[in-house]
C-alpha cells in the first residue's frame, strides 16, 4: 500500500512547481475522486494568471508537431510552458494510445516545460472533461503559457473556444475547397488561423480561401475588437512561428479590459454549466427508479421525454426536502 498524501497537502509543493505534486493532482482531478474536489476548489480560487491557448484542427493537420515548435519559441522568449495534449479514447475498450509526446521528446529534460497527455474518456467536443481543472493546476504551478491541444476534430467540435483565451485553428492544405471555408462551425471560433505545411505548393490556395472567407466577414471569432489573422507555417522548414508567437501576445493585449472580461465570463459560465450538468447527471442516474424508467422506455410504454420529466421532478423534490 502506497502512502496517500491528501490532495490539500499537494497544493503547496505544486505551487512551488514540484513536478511530482503537480502530476499527482492532475491524476486525481482526471479520476474525479471526491477527495480532490476541495483542493480543486482552492486551486480554482488561486488560479487565473496564465494565458491559455487552445489549438485545434482536423486530424493530421500537424497540431502536435506545431506545438513542439511553439514550445521551443516560447521557451526562447523565457516563458514557462505547459501543454495539455488530448487524444481520443477507444469507443469500445475505453482505452487509448496517447502519442503526442513522441513529437515533443526533445523537451523532456526542460524543467520549465510540462507536458501532460489526456484521453477524452467519452467526452465529446474535442476536449477531456477535466482539462480545465488541469489547466488551473498548471496555472498555480507557475506556467504562464498553457497550450491545450485538442483531439483532431471535425467541423463542429468547438468547445475549445469556451476553454481558452486565444483559440488557434489549424488548417492543412489539400483538405477542402472554398465551400469548406464558408461552412459554419470550427472556422468561426478562430482568434488566429494557421495554415500548416506551407512547404506544400497547394498551401497558397488554402491561405487564399481562408482570407477570402474572412473578407466576407466569416471567421473572426466573437471578439468585436479583433480581426483574426491568417498565418502560414511550416514545421518542416521552421517557418511562421515567430509570427504566430507574436500573434499570441497581440491577441492577449486585445483582451485588456472589457473584451477580456467578456471572455472570462464566457469561460466561467461554460464551466459552471459543465459542473452542473455532471452533478445533475450523476444524481439523475443514481435515482432508484432510473433503471425501471429505462425499461419502460425500451418497452415503449412511456416516451423518453415524459420519463425524464418524472425523474427530474422526483429528483428536484428530493433535493428540496
Amino acid at each position, binding site marked *: 500500500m*502506497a*502512502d*496517500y498524501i491528501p490532495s490539500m497537502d499537494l497544493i503547496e509543493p505544486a505551487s512551488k512547481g514540484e513536478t*511530482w505534486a503537480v502530476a499527482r493532482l492532475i491524476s486525481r482531478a482526471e479520476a474525479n475522486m471526491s477527495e480532490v474536489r476541495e483542493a480543486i476548489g482552492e486551486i480554482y480560487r488561486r488560479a487565473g494568471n496564465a494565458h491559455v491557448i487552445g489549438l485545434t484542427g482536423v486530424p493530421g493537420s500537424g497540431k502536435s508537431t506545431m506545438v513542439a515548435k511553439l514550445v521551443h519559441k516560447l521557451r526562447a522568449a523565457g516563458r514557462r510552458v505547459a501543454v495539455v495534449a488530448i487524444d481520443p479514447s477507444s469507443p*469500445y475498450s475505453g*482505452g487509448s*494510445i496517447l502519442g503526442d*509526446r*513522441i513529437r515533443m521528446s526533445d523537451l523532456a529534460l526542460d524543467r520549465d516545460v510540462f507536458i*501532460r497527455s489526456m484521453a477524452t474518456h467519452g467526452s465529446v467536443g474535442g476536449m477531456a472533461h477535466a482539462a480545465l481543472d488541469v489547466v488551473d493546476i498548471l496555472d498555480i504551478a507557475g506556467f504562464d503559457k498553457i497550450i491545450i491541444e485538442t483531439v483532431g476534430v471535425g467541423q463542429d467540435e468547438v468547445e475549445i473556444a469556451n476553454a481558452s483565451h486565444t483559440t488557434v485553428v489549424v488548417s492543412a492544405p489539400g483538405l477542402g475547397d472554398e465551400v469548406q471555408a464558408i461552412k459554419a462551425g470550427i472556422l468561426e471560433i478562430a482568434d488566429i488561423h494557421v495554415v500548416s505545411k506551407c512547404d506544400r505548393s497547394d498551401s497558397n490556395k488554402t491561405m487564399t480561401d481562408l482570407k477570402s472567407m474572412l473578407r466576407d466577414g466569416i471567421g473572426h471569432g466573437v471578439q468585436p475588437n479583433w480581426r483574426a489573422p491568417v498565418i502560414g507555417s511550416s514545421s518542416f522548414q521552421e517557418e511562421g512561428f515567430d509570427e504566430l508567437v507574436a500573434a499570441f501576445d497581440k491577441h492577449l493585449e486585445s483582451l485588456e479590459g472589457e473584451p477580456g472580461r467578456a471572455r472570462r465570463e464566457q469561460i466561467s459560465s461554460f464551466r459552471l454549466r459543465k459542473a452542473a450538468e455532471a452533478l445533475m447527471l450523476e444524481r439523475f442516474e443514481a435515482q432508484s427508479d432510473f433503471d425501471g424508467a429505462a425499461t419502460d422506455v425500451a418497452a415503449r410504454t412511456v416516451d423518453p421525454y415524459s420519463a425524464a420529466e418524472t425523474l427530474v421532478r422526483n429528483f428536484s423534490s428530493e433535493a428540496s426536502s
Partner: protein
Amino acid sequence: MAAPIRVLLAKIGLDGHDRGVKVVARTLRDAGMDVIYSGLHRTPEEVVSAAVQEDVDVLGVSLLSGVQMTVFPKIFKLLEENRAKDMIIIAGGVMPDEDVEELKKMGVAEVMLQDTPPQKIVDTLRELVEARGVR
C-alpha cells in the same frame, strides 16, 4: 468508475526493435488502459521525466539490446530523485534468466519475456496496480 490504468511504454537506447512494444501498447489499450508510448531511442532521463509528468501507474521498459543491467539502476536512481518511488516498474523483451533475478532484487515488479501471452501482461498489470492501492 475508477480511472483507467495509465502506462508509459518506453524504448531506451540504441534499440530499434519496436514491433513487440507496439503490440503490447495495442493490447493494453484494448484492455481499457491509457497508454503513452515514448518512441524510439530515448534516454533513461527522458523516460523518467515523462513518466513523472504523466504520473503513470506503470512504467514498462522494452529492451532487446541487452543493456538492462545498466538501464534499470539508472531508472531507479532517477525515480528516487523525482519522488516517484511508488511507480510500478516492468521490464519486457529478451534477457537472460540470471538478469531477471537481479532485476527483481533491484525492484522491477515483473519481467515479461518474449513468450508472455498478451492476457498475462494485462492481468499482471491489473493485479500490481490493485495491490498498490489508491495513491
